[in-house]
């Protein structure tokens, strides 16, 4: 599909990105809020009192696996490759703690903030991309 990158899926990627953008536009122009999944998740479980109502937060979160399930069904199944459960658990703590400390994650900073040219979001996005790249490079060097 993409010369030099046999595993890349640029067309599906772009189409998926457009759907994510529409999801963000719907919440922004419809409800006046940012699509930031880490913020919405902490709101849903009562770890934050900011943002949309608790019920709205849960509805958004329920929509995520439903939307993914529809696509998985239409595509005849997806075959994700996961790291081990202990590594997933360690990573989850870092992602959750880091997203709260850094006021956002890939959706809030990377999509909503970057598209708004927010200085904070651009810095956060460049930072988590750099530390993610360094982490994967280190893992590759170790094993």
């Amino acid at each position: 599909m993409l010369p030099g990158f046999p595993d890349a899926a640029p067309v599906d990627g772009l189409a998926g990105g457009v759907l994510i953008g529409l999801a963000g536009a719907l919440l922004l122009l419809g409800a006046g809020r940012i699509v930031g999944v880490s913020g919405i998740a902490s709101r849903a479980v009562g770890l934050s009192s900011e943002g949309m109502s608790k019920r709205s937060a849960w509805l958004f979160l329920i929509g995520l696996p439903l939307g993914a399930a529809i696509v998985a069904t239409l595509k005849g199944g997806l075959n994700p490759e996961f790291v081990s459960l202990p590594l997933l658990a360690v990573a989850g703590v870092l992602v959750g703690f880091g997203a709260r400390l850094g006021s956002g994650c890939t959706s809030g900073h990377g999509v909503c903030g970057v598209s708004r040219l927010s200085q904070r979001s651009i810095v956060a996005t460049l930072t988590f991309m750099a530390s993610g790249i360094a982490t994967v490079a280190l893992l590759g060097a170790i094993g």
Partner: protein
Amino acid sequence: MILRNYLPPLASGLLFGAGLALGGMTDPARIRGFLDIFGAWDPTLAFVMGGAVLVMAVAWRFVPRMTKPIFAQAFALPERSDLTPQLVSGATLFGIGWGLAGLCPGPGFAILAIAPLQAVVFLASLMAGMALHRVMFKG
């Protein structure tokens, strides 16, 4: 009234989850492949983020022209612009976890329908990390 309040978040979540799955972002191998710039780099995530940012950049243009959102009384948007140590250190830790697992919060929820065991383990520890932050910084 119920539709006005609850349709936007549900429909937004559905679209978001569908977009993640279509764009391959429910597969941690793709996300780690994107971060693996010194190895077999997979640029797919850049297309996903690019598509999403393009659509959102258009959406932002409408905000100053609207007195209020379509289904709500007022916009409630982040207004901070200060760069803080918390922002940078939080993003750094986030990126380490992102690289380790190839997952961030959105895909973590989306895979509940595809790989429930992995999703539950990741989400439980995600919540634990968020709770830890709350205990440490919000008293």
